[in-house]
């Protein structure tokens, strides 16, 4: 089902990103939604579909004054928003809604109106992982990586290079949280979190939000914004327990979502001008590049260390600075989507010249879920 009949016509982040203690989580959703509605000239009565994660679509519909004919509350972690885009595109094609709003807001740092996350002791995670001392993603998402490193001979220095390269992109972005350039030594000397992972290999924890508005490509022509078309989409899930991944060197959810999107878009890897791979931790772009088929297994770390994804490289990746340097509220997928849309509109702070196709790949949980969206700025 090729989706180039649907376009993004509204895309905005919260006015402020980073530390925003004067807004609760739901207001961060609303702030981004109001910015997106304003840039494309829509009012609440014009929106007939709503999708969001963690907060429910009921809360958002009420808060924003919407009367939807279509709702989606898929909440599978940080890639929920990629999956919302996929579901929204299908819904618009099927005629279930005409104008769909997707919102994200998260008071990840200030934790205003953000209920604490907890693992129920009777859940499988609560019974078979939590008793062994993990404390959130830094101690869980990182567990497969030693197996990857041993299998392919990848070094801590190469993993550190992911953070170094992304900081170069962040240095070009006035909205990025961290903009000062760093060296491999800086990363390897930063505080130990969960060996082999150090602080600068882990994402930020910040406040913010983002929103997207989708409609049919035909209607998109009447909007004041430059349409960004949806060429292909994919989604999958694997397991809520990182210890139960089929393969510690590769994500099954990535290997389903990515190729599904490429097949739907009818493009090859050579057609890709710009790439976003959700980087909650420094190993994720390595797994993503391989599982999406950009590189053979075991070659992504040296590809990144070889500056192929850096400014001036042949495959610009995570050009906003990523979750490692731009911002990461907890569910980063929305910010990756926003950067892909900016690149396709030609308005990114670190714009890739003449970029026509952008691949945006997300992860949810600890390799639990995945969503991939392929965008184009070329009219169908």
């Amino acid at each position: 089902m090729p989706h180039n009949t649907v376009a993004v016509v509204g895309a905005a982040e919260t006015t402020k990103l980073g530390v925003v203690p004067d807004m609760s989580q739901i207001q961060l959703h609303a702030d981004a939604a109001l910015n997106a509605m304003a840039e494309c000239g829509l009012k609440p009565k014009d929106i007939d579909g709503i999708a969001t994660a963690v907060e429910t679509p009921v809360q958002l519909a009420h808060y924003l004054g919407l009367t939807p004919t279509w709702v989606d509350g898929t909440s599978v972690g940080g890639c929920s928003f990629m999956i919302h885009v996929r579901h929204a595109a299908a819904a618009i094609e099927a005629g279930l809604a005409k104008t769909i709003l997707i919102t994200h807001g998260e008071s990840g740092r200030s934790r205003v109106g953000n209920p604490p996350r907890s693992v129920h002791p009777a859940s499988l995670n609560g019974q078979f992982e939590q008793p062994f001392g993990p404390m959130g993603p830094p101690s869980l998402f990182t567990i497969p990586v030693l197996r990857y490193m041993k299998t392919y001979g990848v070094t801590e220095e190469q993993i550190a290079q992911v953070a170094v390269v992304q900081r170069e992109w962040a240095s070009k972005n006035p909205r990025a949280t961290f903009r000062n350039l760093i060296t491999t030594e800086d990363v390897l000397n930063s505080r130990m979190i969960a060996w082999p992972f150090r602080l600068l290999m882990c994402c930020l924890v910040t406040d913010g939000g983002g929103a997207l508005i989708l409609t049919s490509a035909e209607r998109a022509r009447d909007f004041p914004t430059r349409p960004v078309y949806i060429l292909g989409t994919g989604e999958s899930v694997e397991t809520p327990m990182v210890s139960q991944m089929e393969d510690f060197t590769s994500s099954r959810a990535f290997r389903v979502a990515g190729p599904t999107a490429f097949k739907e878009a009818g493009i090859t890897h050579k057609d890709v001008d710009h790439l976003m791979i959700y980087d909650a931790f420094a190993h994720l772009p390595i797994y993503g590049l391989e599982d999406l088929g950009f590189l053979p297994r075991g070659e992504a770390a040296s590809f990144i260390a070889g500056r192929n994804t850096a400014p001036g490289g042949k495959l610009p990746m995570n050009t906003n600075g990523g979750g490692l340097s731009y911002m990461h509220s907890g569910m980063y997928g929305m910010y990756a989507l926003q950067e892909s849309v900016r690149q396709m509109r030609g308005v990114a702070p670190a714009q890739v010249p003449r970029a026509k196709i952008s691949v945006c790949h997300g992860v949810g949980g600890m390799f639990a879920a995945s969503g991939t969206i392929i965008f184009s700025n070329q009219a169908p």
Partner: protein
Amino acid sequence: MSEPGRALPQPTPETQHFWDGTQAGELRLQRCDACAKVYFPPRPFCPACASRTVSVFKASGKARLYSYVIHHRPVPGFTPPYAIAVVELEEGPRMMTNIVECPQTPEALQLDMPVEVVFAPQNDTITLPLFRPAKG
């Protein structure tokens, strides 16, 4: 590694046999009677073929260290740095655990080293399966 304060499991009807097993000094897995798949975590049907005819059996307790991190942040019940590990059981399934009776260092914790289960009572009803370097 059995200080009070660590998160403890709350067994469900589907997992009770596993936690009864650790109390009795047995690591219990399940095998599908229809397709012979050995699987973990516990559930009363086979995730490979959906058969409800499955058997509980006592595993060997032998495993190899599959992957881990050495956590450096404080967590109730733990003294950092400590390894959060995944072991691959001789029977195939993998499980999260801690490695005990061993320095918590990259030098001492070599991937693929043989390990064996030990049972660490936490209270009157819960005993956790931990692993230590195999003693031959």
